[in-house]
Each structure stands twice: as C-alpha cells, then as structure tokens.
C-alpha cells in the first residue's frame, strides 16, 4: 500500500493534545444556553440582541431556555424589585452547575436610578454576578460585548471540572 500513512502521520491529522480542563472550558463557552430573566425595559433590547440583526447565535448563545434547569447562563435584564427578588433567587438556585450570571443594564447592576423603597440595589445582593453590562438600557452591542467577556472568563476557569460521579 503506497499511500498507507504511518501512525505518526495519522495522529498529526486527527488528534490534538490539550488539557481536559481547557477543552471542557472551550466547549462550555461556545454553547451557552441563556435563561432570560427579563423584567423591564432592558428585556426589550435583549429581544433585539436575539433577533436577526444582531443575532446572538454568532456567539453560540442563542438557545434560549425558559426553564432554569436547562440553562447555564442567567441574563437578568431589567429592574428587580423586592417582591421579585425571592423569585430570582429561586430561579438561580434551580440552575445546575456550572452556571454564570450577566447583569444587563444599570438596574440589574446597581438599582439604576431607582434608589427607592421597593427596588433591589443590584442583583448581587442576592446572587453572584459574573459580568455587569452598563447602560440604561445597554445597546445591543454592549450586551454582546458582555457575552464575549464572559466567554473569555470561562476560558480561564480552573477547578470547575466535575468528576464523572457528580
């Protein structure tokens, strides 16, 4: 067989070596499944990010799941009030690990310009946040930038590998 490749050649074509962690991180960052927690005005801009013009699918994050149990990225877009806070916490708790959170807009990040008796002053009062996106509402480009930053963060994550039994 004149064209028979040596084992060494075959390996070079079809294999690459990496660390398991890097590989898993790469897979995770490229297939985020967002759970939109849209409460107010920001949610309207979130819809724009998803639809054809801005197209979040280009970043592998278009598979929206309205069930927290099937998603790994919580995007909180809009004001969270004290009445809503326990609901948000419950939804976050229902998401399986690993999970990430983006606070979209001034309200989700800090309460925005509502320093008021019924408004949570940033969702980090209740749940941990990975990325804060500024703006009231952020432009669609702003949110996309936030998603890209999150991807960079996931790339570098360490020690989040779960054992087979978990």
């Amino acid at each position, binding site marked *: 067989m004149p064209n028979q490749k040596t084992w060494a050649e075959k390996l070079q074509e079809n294999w690459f070596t990496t660390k398991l962690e890097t590989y898993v991180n790469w897979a995770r960052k490229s297939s985020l499944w967002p759970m939109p927690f849209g*409460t107010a*005005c920001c949610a309207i801009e979130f819809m724009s990010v998803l639809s054809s013009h801005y197209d979040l699918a280009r970043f592998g994050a278009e598979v929206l799941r309205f069930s927290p149990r099937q998603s790994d990225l919580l995007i909180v877009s809009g004001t969270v*009030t*004290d*009445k809503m806070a*326990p*609901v948000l916490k419950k939804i976050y708790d229902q998401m399986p690990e690993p999970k990430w959170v983006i606070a979209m807009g001034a309200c989700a990040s800090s309460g925005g310009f509502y320093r*008021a008796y*019924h408004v949570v002053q940033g969702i980090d009062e209740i749940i941990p946040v990975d990325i804060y996106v500024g703006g009231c509402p952020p432009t669609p480009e702003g949110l996309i930038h936030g998603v890209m930053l999150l991807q960079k963060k996931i790339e570098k994550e360490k020690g989040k590998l779960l054992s087979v039994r978990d």
Partner: protein
Amino acid sequence: MTVELKERVDVGQILQERFPSCVVKSEEFRGDLAVTVRRDGLLEVVSFLKNEPQLDFDLLLDICGVDRLGRSPRFDCVYHLRSLSKRRLIRLKVPLDENDPEVSSITSVWKGANWFERETYDLFGLKFKGHPNLRRILTHEDFKGHALRKDYPADRRHPLARTTDALTTWPESVGEHPERMVVNIGPSHPATHGTLRIQAVIEGETVVESDSEIGYLHRCFEKMAENHTYAQIVAYTDRLNYCSSFMNNAGFALAVEKLLDIQVPERIRLIRVILSELTRIMDHLVAIAANLVDLGAITNFWYFFRPREEIYDLLEACCGARLTVNYARIGGFPLDVPESFVEMVNEILRRLPRFIDDVDRLNTKNRIFQGRTRNIGVMKKEDAIEWGFTGPCLRASGVEYDVRKAHPYLDYESFDFVVPVGTNGDIYDRIAVRMEEMRQSMRIVKQAMKRFGSGPYKIDEKTISLPEKDKAYSDIESLINHFKLVMEGITPPSGEVYSYTEAANGELGFYLISDGGPKPYRLKVRPPCFPIFQGMNEMLKGTLVADSIAILASLNIIAGELDR
C-alpha cells in the same frame, strides 16, 4: 364623537344644591373642576354623578391619595371621573383625618374601583369601608408602612426573604372538585411578556376562575417624582410604557405646561404629534406581533420588527437613544430634530404600509386566525366602561372614545383621521382596531409632514428652557441662566391639574400637584393598563388555557406602566 354640548352645565353648582350638607366647596383651576366632599356623603354623590342622566359620569378614571402632611385633616382621597357622552371631567376630593383615615368603598358603584382602592391603601394607608379584599397590591406582603406618605423616606426598603405563595387563599372550589387544579403562570414566564402573575383554577382545559397579582415591577415612580425636579422626571416617564416612551414624555410635558399655563409653538406641537404617532405605531407593532406569536404565527413577528427598527433609527437620530428616548422637555425639546428628519419620516411612511398589508393579508381572512380570535376574550361595552377600560381595548368593544377626538390636544382637531371601533370586543377586534389605528396614525403623520417647516424647537423663556449649549459656553448671562435652571429647576405656580393624552394603551393621565417648588408635591399617573389588567380575570372565565394566553397578549399589558 360629534356630540355637541348644548348647554353648559355647572356640575359643581348642581352638586352643591343637591347635597348642601356634604359638598364643602367646588373650585376651578386651569379648567379642571374639583369638588370637595365630606366622607359620609361620598357614596351618595358618586352614585348621583354616575346615574343622573344629565351628568352621566360613567367612567371611573382613577383613585389616589394625597398626603398633606402638616394640614389637618392630613389626607385627601381623590377621585377622577369622566363622562364619555358629555365629555366632562370632575375631580372629587375627600379629606380624611390622620387618626381615622377611612372612607366608604365605591366598589359597589364601579367594579373597577377595587384595585385603585387597594393601591391607595397600600401606599397611603387609607382604609375603604366595605372593600371586599383590602390588602397590599404593589408592594409585597412583608412591607411595613405606607410608602407614599410624606414622612416615609424614599429609600427605606423592606427586603423580602421568602417566596410568597399563592395569591389569595387556596381557592375553595378546588377542594370540592378533585378534578380541578391550580395553575400558576408568572411572574417569570415567557407567555406573560413581563412580570405579571396569573393564577388560574382549571378543570380539564377550561379556566374556571383566576386571579392576578401585580407589583413585581413596582419601581416607585411616584415617590421618585416627588424627589426630582420636573426636568429630571422626564427620564423616569420613559420607563412607564417603555414600548412607546416618547408618548409618556410628551404627556408629562403637557401636564407641566398646563400647570404653567403655556402653549408651545406650532412646530413643536407638530414634532410631538409626528413622533407620538410613530411611537404609537411602534407600540402597536409590538403588541400585534407578540399577540400573533402567542397564537403560533411567528412569521409576523419578523415582519413587524423590521419597520420597528427603522423608527428606532429615526429616534436615535433625534436624540441618541433607541428605547428610552427622554426627548420631550417642558416647553419643547432639548435639541432640534436632525436635518435628515423629513427624509427619514417620509421613508418610513413609504415602507411601512407594505409590512402592515402583508400581516393583514396573512391573517385577517385566515381561518385558523379567525378561529382562534373571534368571540374569544369578549368584553362587552358596558363592562368595559365599568372596569375603566380606555384606548384600543375600549374601542374594540364598540365605544368610540379617543382622547385625541374627544378632548383634542396638540391640534389633533385639525387632522383628518377616523377612530376605528370594533363590535364584539374580542381578540379579533382588538387586533383589527390596532391595525387600523396604525394606518390612521400614518395619515396623521402625512398631514403633519405637509405642514412641517422651520421654526423654534423650544420656547424662548428663561425660566423654563435651557439656553443653547454654545451660548451657555460663550456668554455669561446664558451661563447663569443655565446654571440656575439646572440647580434650581422650573418652579410652576402652586395648584393642581389633571392632564391626559391618548397613549398607545389608552388614556394616560398625569395628576400633578405643585406647591410652587421645583419638585412636584405629588404626581399620580393614571396608567391605562391598570384597569384593563384588572378586568382581564372576567374575560378568562370559561376560556381554554391556550386562549387565555392569547387574551392576555391582546390586552398589551406593559408591566412598567402597570406597576409604575
């Protein structure tokens, strides 16, 4: 709406003659009639106002509280009533003492009073004797105190540490009928398009009864308004109905202008009309598109979101923002429309009809669409008025009431357009009315574009509008003027007005009280969604679960406006 008023009836005088012991005084300010009534006489007076054919105040617009801290009696409970046939408005004020702030509930006169009274109880602690279910509505159960009282600090929070359970008590009917079950929808559910919560008792596929809970987006707009200057509040109004922000801006600006007793020049009025109508179109596009998605017709969503982006582009060219535009100012605009304005509006007018016609053709005669919308979610004319409906939802039920025709503002009387009305009050009619309204709005914009020319974009009045930016940088007088307006703000005379406009969802009213200072003493919004959402539970009775989602979407409830 061509009823001409034959005789000018002095409602205040009639009331005073009829109820000499309980009507304390009647006064007029900026054309608004306000009558002060003793609390024991309130039920009699409102029943008389509603049932007396000569007066015919059939629509309950709003109930709210006012805290006059330092005065005795401390509170006012304020009612706004409107007569649709006689085109009149009246404000009733009932003074209440701090130690016994109780007044009879008027839920026996108007069903729609229920939620309004609950809101007044929640935010002011006023009590309503005979109310069937007097509990908090906007804030949560564990909230302490009454947030809109003047001695309540704006930022004192009471975080809620637990999830609250079912809305009311567990419905009794479920125990008796084991085949029934309770389904909870919301407050975070894709079908509610916002933070609404509905709980329905269902038997098989049919909704037996339902109740709804609101307040998940209560952002304290009214308290924020009391703590900011008039110019700052414009930004907060954006976030009421965020699908059509500009109309809220314009409505608020008009309210303050009414208080200041000024009329802006024609060009400013024209720009406001053009942008308002385009925003109305934008709002209807979203409402119809979302409604159709809930019926399974997703194509329309993409058809309608395309022209919406074009209107966004126009707004962005005007002010730099897409969604929360913050573009109207008291006395005009912060900056002039761009040079490309005419061209852009004409381009929108040229392209828009195709999208509307496409969606029309895809649906209106479509059998599936008709099957899913005709005779579903019916709201009868009388009931719609009883609940306090306004806007497209009221017109779909066959009442020809549109603020733009009945009480024209911004020169709407000079435009040629018709008010579409439905016959049945079902989902089909609500969509059809919105479709036709978009076409009528285009007609108005076309006429306005013909008149559009050059002129000022703000009034030339030192105490109201800011000087041009370059002048503020180059001459000392303008700089001082700029500084004073920013630091001190506009100070309208003391008094109170109720100003109202036809927003996308109905009558958007601002009840504004000024004490002569730079911040409003009280600002109450009359949100069109609020009474509509209250009436929804009646529509849901007996419908299928799948239809209930379609009904909800056909009402276009926007949480920002509902909860404020």
